[in-house]
Each structure stands twice: as C-alpha cells, then as structure tokens.
C-alpha cells in the first residue's frame, strides 16, 4: 500500500515565477527506504516539507499530496506530529530543551501522554539508541553526532510510521555520520518505518535504498533501483553522476557487463571477476611525486605544546611540521586529535606554552596586532556563517576593503573577487539565504579580500554537495596557481586525496606521518579512500577514482 502519493505537485514562492517543484509524481510504499538526491537548490527540501503540511512553506501550489490515501491537509496536527517524523539538518537548532531526558519527552508531553507512558517510552528510546550514559547531561555538552542522535531518538519516541530526514549528517564528521545512518537503517529494517532521506554523501545511503530518486531543477530526472540509476545519470551526463559512490563511478568509468557494484565489498569482487585469469601488467600509478627534503617554507611549527588550562591535559604534544610555499597542505585525523587547535595556534588564537611557530620566516609573537592578518594570513572558519555581518553579500565584501577607496575602485575589487569565487550572481542576496556551498564561497570571497599569502581552511567541504565541492576545488587550484599557500583541515579523505600536495595525519596531539597523498593513502588500509580500499588487492597505489579507472583501462 502506498504511504505517500504525490500527484502533479508544483510549487513556487509568492512573487516568483520560478517553479521550485515542477509537476512531481511519486508513490512511496510503506516500509520502503527512499534516497532522494540532487544538487543544492534542486527542490529536495521543499519536496520533503510538502510531506508534512505543518511545515509546508506558503506559496502557489498545484496538485495534491496523499498520506495514507487521504489528502495530507486533512490530517490534523496530532496525527501528523505522531505519525510523520522529520529530522532536519542542523543538530543544534532542532533541540528545544536543556536536558537530554527532557528533550526525549518533549514530543510525548505535547501529545499529552501520562507520566507512566512517557517514562516507558523514554526508557525504551534511551536503551535502543544507547543514550543511557548521557541521559542526565545538558544538551550543550553533547557532540554533534550525539545531538543528531538525540533528535532522531526524540522523534522516534513518538513512534512515527514515516521518518523523513533532510541531510541529517551534513554537519557531522564521517564516523558520526556513519553511526547515525546505520541507526536509521536499523530503524527501517527492525521496525519497518518508512524512511525518506536526502544526503550529500551517498556512500552510506545509496546501497541500502530500495529506490534512488534524483531531482534537478524541481523535476524528478531519475527514479529507479540503486543499480540502475547510474545508467540514467551516465547516459544524460548529469552533474549528479559525480556524487555517486566510488564503486559506481569507477564501474561506469571502466565500462563492464557485470552487475553494478554498490559497496566497497561488491567493488572488490567486481574487480576480481573483471580481471580473473588476466595478467595484471600495470599495477602502479606513476606519480613522480616525492617528498622533498628542503623547500621554500611558508609556515613552520617546531615542538609546539599547548593546553587550555594549567591542570588540563595537553591538546598539542610537540607538533612539528613545515608547509611548502604555494602548495596545498592537508591535515587529516579523527575528532579531538588537535587539528583545529593547531590551526588556531597558527592564527595566534591560542598561545602555545612551549615551541616555536614561524609564519613566513617570522616568529608569530613578533607580529603586531592585526599585522598577521593583513596581506599575510587568513582563515576560513568551519562555519562560514559566522563571517557574515551585513544585509547583502556585496556589503559584506565591502566591509573588508580599506577605507578611502572610491566607489569604482571598490566595485572593481569586489567584482574581481566575486569572479574568482563564482558568486557574481549572488552579490545582492542576503548571506543567510544562500545554500551551504554558496555561503562557503561568499565567505571565501571575504577572506580573499585580505589578500592572504597563506590561507587556512577549516573543514572546507563540510555540508556542501559534490557539485559545489568540484567548484571549490577549482577555486583552490586557481589560488594555488597565483602562489597562495593553503593549509586545510579536513575529514574528507576523498577530497584530500585528490586536491592536496601533502597530507599529514594527526593523532593524539601530534603529527604521526606526513607524505604525498598517493603514498599516504596507499600505505593506509582503513584511513583511506573507497577507491583504494576497493582496488588494493590488485593495484599498488590507486588512490582516486581516476587512478583506478586508468589502471583498469591499461590492463584491458
């Protein structure tokens, strides 16, 4: 039986002719797992919001959404609250109360259950989601992953029949994201709850979906099983193809008659089958990259130690690294290993109690106030929103320019930077109305107006989709060409493998190893790209999707 049925749904915002949703027809079966994907701004979120009329935006609407066979407007707030669960993107703002236990009970309180029922449901949820250990904590003490798990649990406490998730893991690190998505998968399998999910990182939601629906410009362009969706995208040469999981991309890149692999395991088997009985003549990518011994140094850290308080444990334990001028230096590693603190120390935000930091050959203490940040060094923060202080992107960029420039000069500079960061069309928009990827680029524009020689990026790919990632990578390449040194902290293994010149791994407050991305990722067996994990039994050092495809073709 159909759980949701959408018939000829179109939607546009008042005073704007552009159709956000354009004649959508869709049937969602009970108990199915649906992955909805598409570029930012393709109408995914708007579509999801139509599945719960309490939060449906106002505007011009045609067509009908049926829930359980009846138009959704007919089901009241009580039915919708309990039966349709909705988890949003931002872990923080969804939380209402200050205590974990209170948050779990919030929805049940609204529905008017008595003490006994709430106690039981809360206990059930806490046990199912493994929340007991932090049940009595304040919500502000939780990590991002825990917060999002709490949001999920407090929705599940109302025992919904459908669970709608709108990019739930975009603000989480990969490990927390996997944990979260596995829990969602478990709910679908064990409770039979219908799941409708949108995601940027498709690795964890693609293979387990019953159907993958791809949207573009308000239309559904593909609606098929995960194994077949790739065909449609490949044939139409769609941008979304780049967002598919590595095994799928490699499969289509190489071309094969076998079944499409969806996971790393299937990818391995597929490669083995593909090359069964064949001699592998080329098993290595020749990169010519090598770690240089001495080079022109932009940033040096020598034995840097830091702790927040006198009696607190050390966060940095003898960090030593040097960054070559004009290169992209990536810092990877788990949460709480000191990556962010390291870049904070480069900006002088935290002051080490031992060790030396040299920026462009000069001790960091010798820089006068703000001298460090003029034409020298700048950082793009993890949350780009914290840089926006004005009503439009243009004004925000204008704020960065020195006083005393004429309007024309200002305009020229702003246009120049807007061209580099590809935000020319967005200059009159309010920064908060931009999508994650656009905010990222607008904020980068602001940072670039300080004319930095050294640019620090803190988690630059967090919360942006693959399409915007590619754009961002282009910008980084451009900056690199113009001689800017880039230091980036990232969880995004794939991105680092592709775009960094040097990769350093952090663990327990210091650098464990530093190498070229190819050497670095082909040495590792867990902390490496999907492409490498999938091909390491055949090829020595294929790290990116392109590497694997190239070697496969050579061996044909």
């Amino acid at each position, binding site marked *: 039986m159909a759980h949701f049925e959408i018939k000829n749904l179109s939607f546009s915002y008042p005073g704007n002719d552009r159709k956000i949703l354009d004649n959508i027809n869709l049937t969602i079966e009970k108990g199915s797992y649906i992955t909805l994907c598409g570029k930012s701004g393709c109408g995914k979120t708007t579509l999801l919001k139509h599945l*719960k009329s*309490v*939060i449906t935006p106002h505007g011009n609407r045609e067509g009908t959404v049926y829930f359980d066979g009846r138009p959704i407007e007919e089901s009241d*707030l*009580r039915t919708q*609250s*309990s039966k349709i669960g909705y988890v*949003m993107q*931002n872990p*923080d*703002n*969804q*939380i*209402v*109360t*200050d*205590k974990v*236990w*209170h948050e779990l*009970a*919030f*929805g*049940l*309180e*609204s*529905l*008017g*259950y*008595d*003490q006994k029922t*709430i106690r039981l449901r*809360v206990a059930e949820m806490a046990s199912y989601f493994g929340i007991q250990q932090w049940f*009595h904590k*304040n*919500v*502000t003490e939780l990590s991002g992953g825990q917060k999002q798990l709490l949001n999920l649990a407090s*929705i599940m406490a*109302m025992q919904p029949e459908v669970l709608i998730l709108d990019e739930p893991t975009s603000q989480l690190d990969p490990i927390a994201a996997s944990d979260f998505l596995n829990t969602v998968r478990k709910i679908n399998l064990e409770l039979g709850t219908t799941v409708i999910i949108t995601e940027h990182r498709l690795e964890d939601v693609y293979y387990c979906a019953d159907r993958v629906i791809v949207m573009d410009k308000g239309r559904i362009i593909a609606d098929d099983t995960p194994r077949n969706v790739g065909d449609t995208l490949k044939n139409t040469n769609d941008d979304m193809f780049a967002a598919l999981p590595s095994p799928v991309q490699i499969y289509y890149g190489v071309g094969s008659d076998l079944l499409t692999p969806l996971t790393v395991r299937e990818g391995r088997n597929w490669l083995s089958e593909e090359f069964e009985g064949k001699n592998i003549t080329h098993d290595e990518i020749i990169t010519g990259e090598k770690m240089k011994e001495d080079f022109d140094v932009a940033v040096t850290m020598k034995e840097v130690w830091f702790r927040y308080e006198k009696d607190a444990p050390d966060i940095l334990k003898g960090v030593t690294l040097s960054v070559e001028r004009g290169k992209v230096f990536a810092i990877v590693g788990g949460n709480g290993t000191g990556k962010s603190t390291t870049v*904070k120390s480069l*900006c002088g*935000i935290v002051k080490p109690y031992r060790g030396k930091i040299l920026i462009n050959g000069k001790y960091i203490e010798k820089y006068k*106030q*703000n001298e*460090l*940040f*003029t034409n020298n060094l*700048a*950082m793009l*923060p993890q*949350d780009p929103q*914290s*840089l*926006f*202080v004005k009503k439009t992107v243009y004004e925000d960029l204008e704020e*960065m320019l020195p006083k005393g420039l004429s309007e024309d000069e200002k305009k020229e500079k702003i246009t120049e930077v807007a061209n580099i960061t590809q935000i020319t069309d967005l200059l009159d928009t309010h920064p*908060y109305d931009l999508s994650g990827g656009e905010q990222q680029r607008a904020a980068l524009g*602001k*940072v670039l107006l*300080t004319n930095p020689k050294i640019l*620090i990026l803190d988690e630059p790919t967090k919360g942006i989709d693959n399409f915007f990632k590619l754009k961002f990578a282009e910008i980084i390449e451009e900056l690199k060409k113009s001689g800017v040194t880039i230091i980036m902290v990232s969880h995004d293994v794939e991105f680092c493998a592709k775009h960094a010149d040097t990769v350093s791994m952090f663990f327990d407050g210091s650098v464990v190893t530093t190498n070229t991305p190819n050497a670095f990722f082909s040495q590792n067996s867990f902390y490496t790209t999907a492409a490498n994990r999938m091909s390491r039994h055949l090829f020595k050092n294929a790290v990116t999707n392109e590497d694997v495809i190239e070697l496969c073709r050579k061996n044909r």
Partner: protein
Amino acid sequence: MKSDAFSEYNPIINFAFFIGAIGLGMFFTHPAFAACSVFFSALYLYTIKGRESLKFIGGMGIMFIVLSLINGLFNSMGETVLFVYFGRNYTLEALLYGMCTSAMLISVFLWFASYNSIMSNDKFMFIFGRIIPSGSLIISMALRLVTIYKNKIIQIHTARKCIGKGAADENDRISALKNGSTVISTLATWALEGGVITADSMRMRGYGLPGRTTFSNYRFGMRDKALLGGMVLLSAVIIFCAAMGASSAEFIPVINITSGGIYFYAGLISYILFLSIAPIINITEAVRWRILRSRI
C-alpha cells in the same frame, strides 16, 4: 563521611524539608530550639560534604561568637550587669539574647548551604513546573540558549579576528565597542534564524496541541509518601505547641524562658525528630553501606 541519600528522595520532599527547617528555624529564639537547629543543620551539612564543610561550619562558629558579643555592645537593657564599659552597661540578658538570635541566624545560613548543594536546577524546575508548566519550559529553553549564545559569540569573535577584523586595538574603547556591537548584531541575526528552526521543530513535535502534560524523571514512591506524612504531622505538632507557648523566650528586661510542661517537651521532641530526618537518613545510609562493604 559523605552520603547524600536524602537528596535522592522526591524533590518535593527535599523542598518541604527545607521549607520546614528554615521556616521554623527563623522563628525560634528559644535557646533549646535554636541549639537544635544549629546542631542539626551543621550535622546535615557535614553528612553531605564531609570534611570540606568544616571550614564553613567553623566560619559560622566565629560569626556566632562575634554577633553574640556585639549585641551586648549596642543593647544595654537588662538587669544583670556583667561589667561597665565607657559608662555603658554590658548585661547578661543582652548577651543571651545575642547568642540566641545569632544561633538562629547561623542555623539558617547552614540550612541554606545544604539547600544549595541539594536543590539542583532540575529539582527546582520540577517543583515549579507543576505550578506554571509553560514558564518552566521557557526557563528550560533559556538555560540552553545561554550556553549556545556564549559559544557563538566566541566563534564569531574568533572568525573575525582571523580575517583581521577583530578590534583594531583592544585597548581602544571605541574600536572595541564597535567590534562588540558588530558581533552582537551578527549574533542576533543568527539567533533569529535558529529560532525559526527551533519553532518548526517544536511544531513538528506537536507543540501547541491542547492537553500538554509535563514529564519528570522523579518518582513519588511509598517512602516519599510516608516521609511527607511524617513531616506534615511533626510540623503540625511543633506549630501547635509553639502556639501554646512552648518556645516562648523573653530576654529583656527579665529572662523568662519556658523550660517545662507538656507542650515544651512535645514541641521540642517533635522539632528534634523533624530536623533529624535528613541527617539521619544520610547517616543510616552511610552506615548501611559500611556494613555491606565489610561483609564482602
């Protein structure tokens, strides 16, 4: 010795006990009653905090001596003159009166010290959430926002500093003020944006439906009922006896303190029983654990 079994009772019990102990303690200047209050309040604090509390109790002791002596300096009424200073009489009555009132005062302080470590925000919210449910939700939401806003201010400040937009010179008041106002206005935009999402999140979970209930983590079990009954009964006896003059004490001009009669004994014993509830519960618990442990 540290034990806090009493705080594990229902918050209503905790709160009722402190209301009783502090409320009654404020009215009794009768030396026997005041002495009981001081003794039990100090004992209770000791059972909660152990050696740590001795410093505070010691401080209260000094305060008691000072306040007791001072009263005699300003109040020279009374019949029994102990000595004369600068032409004024220092009387026994004034000294005694000072002792009793300052005993009353320090016992209230001591009770409050225990109150502070027992009555957490959670418990307070639980009690008042039953009286004004929406008010308690607002407080709960506000408590969360305080921390979030604080962190966000630091985040914005750091982000701006790293692009050279921090206060140009932190010692310059005007530039610091300008920078501060930018940070605050950014925070306001951000908070409004977040508020919309929070409001959505509340509506999605049925906020605004009629018949909202309030959930709490605390049970009101048998032992709570029994204890509450006992406390009500004891305080009724105490108040009745006090009304009958059991605790009347006059110091000036002549010392006239009740020291006998059925009401006096009934009232005093009930008072002792009442005040000993919390410390006795803690002590029995500690002893029980010691015995259990020694058996292992």
